[in-house]
């Protein structure tokens, strides 16, 4: 059986950053991704990033994917694409499946950067064709250049809901409304303002009650909710739409970590079930690390920093090159703390803090 050295599952911002750092520190690295292209969700993100220069501010997500892709290919790291890690065998062996074959790969250190999956919500007919997660809509229009529909109802006004709404308009699609169950807009004001300038209504204290249609979406029923999020009778309104886009949050993809036997904790602020990890991104299983959305749903900037920490720590741990690795870890931790101090990092910071508290008990 082959040995992958430090094996990283997931080629998004976290996994790529981990792989680049570990390989640059001289460790043998294997990066596995189930897509034909590296970059994870970055490849569909056309918006420019915020933050500081070192976090690629002013650069579009899709361009960051290309930068990281070039960096990993300039190292001796082995990259395996179109391949899904479908299981874990003790000790230290992964089961890999591509379209035709199943293989096993041993690892010395493992970094799980599997990201997150789209949430859905309950409403009548929520399984109709034409109801997509926001990520799926982005894949269709920004990766393949295909319009998912012509008239879209966006559910959720977090940054993803706002950004994807704007991208839909850029793609020539009519966004009928953005609805939000909370009494205020969830995402950054700058994104909401762009929609407001185009006259797109953002309806707060509103939810979706039903999707209309038999074989695909032909409309939606929305209504107002009270302060306990209960629908208010008589406020129902029918919208003529052919697509409903759900931007209602993400849940960490933790199946692999759970199978490995990492201690799991439930932290709502991090998106649900996550593997306990310390500040070096180590889980409770020796040699197994986690980074990015799989460690708690946040954003690409923090995913890259967590990836750097996991990658540097795993490499230092394997090679005994601790001073060099430690310097990278210290720097990344400083930057991470700075990002999480911002108004939108507060939730994740609280979640991470809660996690260490939960386990210490």
């Amino acid at each position, binding site marked *: 059986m082959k040995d992958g050295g430090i094996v990283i599952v997931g080629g998004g911002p976290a996994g790529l950053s981990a792989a680049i750092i570990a390989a640059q520190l001289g460790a043998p690295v294997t990066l596995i991704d*189930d*897509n*034909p292209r590296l970059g994870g969700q970055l490849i569909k993100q*056309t918006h420019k990033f915020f933050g500081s220069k070192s976090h690629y501010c002013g650069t*579009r997500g*899709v361009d960051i994917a290309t930068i990281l892709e070039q960096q990993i290919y300039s190292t001796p790291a082995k990259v395996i694409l179109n391949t*899904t890690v479908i299981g874990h065998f003790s000790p230290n062996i992964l089961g890999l499946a591509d379209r035709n074959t199943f293989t096993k790969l041993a690892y010395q250190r493992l970094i799980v950067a599997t990201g997150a*999956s*789209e949430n*859905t919500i309950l409403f009548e007919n929520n*399984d*109709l*064709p*034409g*109801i*997509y*997660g926001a*990520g*799926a809509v982005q*894949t*269709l*229009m*920004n*990766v*393949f*250049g*295909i*319009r*998912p529909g*012509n*008239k879209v109802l966006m559910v959720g006004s977090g940054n993803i809901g706002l950004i994807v709404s704007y991208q839909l*308009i*850029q*793609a*020539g*699609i*009519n*966004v009928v409304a953005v609805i939000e169950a909370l009494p205020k807009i969830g995402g950054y004001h700058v994104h909401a303002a762009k929609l407001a300038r*185009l*006259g797109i209504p953002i309806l707060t204290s509103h939810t979706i009650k039903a999707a209309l249609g*038999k*074989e*695909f979406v032909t409309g939606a029923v929305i209504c107002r909710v009270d302060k306990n999020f209960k629908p208010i009778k008589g406020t129902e309104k029918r919208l003529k739409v052919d697509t409903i886009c759900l931007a209602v949050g993400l849940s960490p*993809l933790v199946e692999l970590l759970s199978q490995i036997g990492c201690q799991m904790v439930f932290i709502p602020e991090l998106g649900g079930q996550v593997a306990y990890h310390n500040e070096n991104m180590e889980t409770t299983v020796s040699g197994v690390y986690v980074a990015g959305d799989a460690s708690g749903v946040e954003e690409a900037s923090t995913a890259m920093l967590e990836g750097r920490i996991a990658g540097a720590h795993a490499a230092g741990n394997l090679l005994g090159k601790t001073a060099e690795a430690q310097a990278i870890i210290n720097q990344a931790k400083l930057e991470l703390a700075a990002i999480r101090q911002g108004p939108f990092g507060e939730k994740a910071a609280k979640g991470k803090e809660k996690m260490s508290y939960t386990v210490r008990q």
Partner: protein
Amino acid sequence: MSKRTSKQTAPTRISDHPILKFERGREITFYFEGKPMKGYEGETIAAALVANGVKLFRYSEKHNRARGFFCAVGKCSSCLMVVDGKPNTMVCMEPLRAGVTVERQRGRGKI
């Protein structure tokens, strides 16, 4: 921009985009329920179907409900179809190939 939103463009392929340029692969023909359709190499079967106006991908096992795709990243299993006779193919991850036959799946699909 507001002008473009009000136009309600009918074709589902995006040709002009303010930020992105779409480099499509070779145009190829595939078959959906026996009907020839055009798509491009490098895209997924799910993407090509949507571009051809097909949203309904399968009927669910228990209640025969219409299903399309939801996540497009191989996680939700909502997009299982019969591809070249093989049921339960996740078409949001399956690359489009010339001449491939794609059918709606009913229930669990026959192997």
